[in-house]
């Protein structure tokens, strides 16, 4: 196993000042037109801050208004100076921190806390055996990690890993961090929403675990350039990284297929720059999925998805993840069941979307070995940074990542039963129209009918799994429809504020159509389950 302590992040604090300086220098050097960039920033920031009653915001607003007034009269040198000051401020704000002591502490603390939430009596027992507190084994049954971990460990020694997982919960970075740790992989730095840093406890850990801050409220080019450049420089310098290419948590519960590729694209630029510097360092993307039996914030997320204004609410600050009691209830629920979280590391890809073997060699679709560097040579054979070309490579990489998301998705009992139940709701509504189906309340379905529909959906998933298109959760391949329903019912019960489905004397009550919709949506990207944009082709009548 690779020595994790050799990972560059353990030297982060020594390099922090240099990384920030290089970010500032590069952003300023590459800025063609400081006047245009500063005007754009002033416009966006003035619009954002206008109307805010917070004193800090008002102070900032005045600063921006002042800058906007002065910009036209400034000399080129003064504009460049203003740009440098702003970029320095942003780069300092973005750059994270890494404290090995906090890292070491947290790797022991996370399993302990989670174990305690799961089984408080274990904490009592640990008084006589304190070492049991620090057993990572206790989490292994609850959070399963799957995929070719050995290959990833080898790749981590050859180049820089960039993990790109699906995103459905604010717990993702913690759970994924655990998966990395439990797999013996080196820690990865990642961009976390600045809103998460408002929680003092989370903020303490994020600050000290290599997380860098992403302020999603800032929409102007200068800030985006700072963020991308910082990420590029981290990757160039071998810092293993983690991005959520979905950009934000999946509101619908669907596996993300339309990815935001801004940070993903930094992988190609970083790789090209290492070639230009004569120090090739390979970059490997690892599409991964985080699969929950139930989702902490499902209720808020699906409400947000269904609201007309939902798409505009990019940052949710008041969902279940900000309520300690809800998080504890969720953890107790989830971790009371084996394999309730499954993380799958997918097939590694190079920055051009080509498959990569264990030796870090890329292969084309026919399996031929490829010299990866050849993709960034120009027509005369020279290495070249070419943003337009790289954007297209990144789009193609995005398609491969999305494909990886589909293939590495693990379908759980809750997803199958929700898909079956939602189909029965749809039949009861007699329409394909989503909102008509969602209005059907407390529909009671016959147990055998539900079990039959569950088996139909399960068999579709099994067929897809045979062709490598998805994974069915362990233990679901051969169980009866009734057992599958019972398993999902156990998972659903007791956490969500409204029971999702509930046993009744005369059948099963489908209580919460919105949550059924949310959980069944996991199947949509696979071409299964209900899709409001599709007609009812291939459905049971």
């Amino acid at each position, binding site marked *: 196993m690779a020595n994790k302590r050799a990972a560059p992040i353990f030297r982060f604090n020594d390099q922090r000042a240099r990384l920030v300086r290089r970010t500032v220098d590069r952003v300023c050097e590459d800025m063609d037109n400081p006047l245009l960039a500063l005007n754009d920033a002033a416009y966006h920031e003035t619009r954002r801050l206008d109307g805010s009653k917070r004193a800090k915001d008002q102070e900032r607003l005045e600063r921006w208004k002042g800058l906007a007034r002065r910009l036209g009269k400034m000399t080129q040198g003064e504009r460049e100076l203003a740009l440098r000051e702003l970029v320095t401020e942003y780069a300092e704000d973005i750059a994270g921190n890494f404290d090995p002591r906090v890292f070491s502490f947290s790797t022991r603390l996370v399993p302990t806390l989670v174990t305690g939430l799961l089984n408080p009596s274990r904490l009592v027992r640990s008084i006589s055996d304190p070492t049991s507190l620090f057993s990572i084994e206790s989490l292994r049954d609850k959070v399963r990690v799957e995929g070719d971990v050995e290959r990833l460990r080898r790749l981590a020694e050859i180049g820089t890993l960039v993990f790109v997982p699906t995103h459905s919960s604010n717990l993702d970075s913690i759970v994924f961090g655990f998966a990395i740790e439990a797999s013996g992989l080196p820690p990865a730095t990642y961009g976390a929403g600045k809103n998460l840093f408002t929680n003092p406890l989370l903020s303490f850990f994020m600050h000290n675990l290599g997380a860098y801050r992403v302020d999603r409220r800032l929409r102007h080019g200068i800030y985006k350039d700072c963020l991308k450049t910082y990420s590029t420089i981290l990757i160039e310098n071998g810092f293993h990284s983690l991005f959520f290419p979905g950009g934000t948590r999946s509101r619908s519960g669907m596996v993300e297929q339309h990815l935001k590729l801004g940070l993903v694209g930094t992988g190609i630029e970083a790789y090209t720059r290492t070639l230009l510097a004569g120090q090739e360092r390979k970059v490997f993307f690892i599409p991964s999925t985080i699969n929950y039996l139930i989702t902490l914030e499902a209720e808020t997320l699906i409400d947000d998805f269904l609201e007309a204004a939902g798409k505009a609410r990019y940052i949710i600050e008041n969902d279940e993840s900000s309520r300690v009691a809800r998080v504890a209830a969720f953890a107790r629920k989830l971790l009371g069941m084996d394999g309730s979280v499954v993380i799958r590391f997918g097939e590694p890809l190079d920055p*051009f979307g080509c498959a990569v073997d264990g030796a870090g060699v890329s292969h*084309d679709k*026919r399996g031929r070995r490829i*010299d990866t560097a050849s993709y960034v040579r120009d027509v005369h054979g020279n290495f070249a940074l070419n943003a337009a070309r790289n954007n297209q490579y990144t789009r193609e990489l995005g398609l491969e990542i999305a494909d990886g998301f589909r293939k590495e998705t693990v379908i759980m009992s809750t997803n199958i039963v929700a898909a079956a139940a939602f189909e029965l709701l749809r039949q009861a509504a007699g329409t394909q129209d989503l909102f008509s189906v969602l209005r059907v309340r407390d529909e009671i379905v016959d147990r055998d009918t539900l079990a039959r529909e569950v088996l139909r959906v399960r068999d579709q998933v099994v067929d897809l799994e045979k062709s490598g298109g998805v994974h069915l959760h362990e233990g679901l391949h051969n169980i009866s429809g009734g057992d599958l329903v019972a398993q999902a019912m156990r998972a659903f019960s007791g956490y969500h504020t409204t029971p999702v489905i509930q046993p009744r004397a005369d059948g099963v009550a489908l209580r919460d159509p919105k949550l059924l919709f949310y959980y069944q949506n996991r199947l949509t990207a696979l071409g299964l389950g209900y899709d409001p944009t599709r007609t009812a082709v291939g459905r049971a009548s």
Partner: protein
Amino acid sequence: MTAPAPIVGVIGGGPWGLSLARAARRAKQSEVVLHTRRHADGSLPGIRIVRDFAPFADTPLIIVAVPSPIVRSVARDLGDHLSGRHMVVHGIRGLSGEELHTVSQILREETPARRLGALGGPVQAPELHSGRASAMVVGSAYPDVTATVEATMAGPWLQVKTTDDIVGLEWASALMGCLSVGLGYAQVRDDVSPGLLAALVSGAVDEAVAIAKVAGAQASTLYGLGGYGDLLASMALHDRPEVVVGRALARGASLEEAQREAELRVEAVELVPRVARYAQLHGVASGFFAALADILMGETSPEAALARLFGMSTRG
């Protein structure tokens, strides 16, 4: 100082491949390597003839101009000699299989090349061959590909337009090839007035746009030089193979006779019925393509076909 033109590789010794090789040579005096079994080395001034694909490892720009049924096997063999550095563009008017995969998809599957492009537009082999002024379109999602092709092929006698909608250009080339058969068919009929012909062409292009959009093409590409422009040129190109086939069929010739008359392979003959089926599968109206398929299969008389097409063109 201007960088020297890259070495251009051309694959395909038919009239189209040969014309592209000549055009590349003529435009910038590029060194040209042509893979063909029809010509001997030294028989074409300024063009090096090769029999295998190994020399293409050194040609950063490669133009593939082979018939669509063999493009996959050619690409597979060629792929052994390529790397990510190569730019591969094709000038093939075909779409493969019932799913109507584009040739660039096949090149993507069979070679390590990623910087792919397609050629289209009204230019025909005889114009390229003789250096008569014309225009072509190069499509690629990679701007360095379109820039390289433009820099290599454009000259006072050849305008090269660019688009990033490679899917649209490939579909436009294939579908306009199909419609050129219909155009030839209608042109020789005494009962088709210019007004009716215009209505037929306009309706057929709208239908082609709707079908191509299913595959992700942009309507503007099909309404541009690579689509409508290509079809307009067919009106004046009486010797364009697709037009020749259409004319022969309208005169009552069998499909076999019509193809013989065209002398060259016409991709559209096999493509038309597949396009009609594809459109039907995706719920897109395909009256023109279905009628054209019936004409090609000999399942309708010229009079009945025109009545069907005329009925459609006057609807709405």
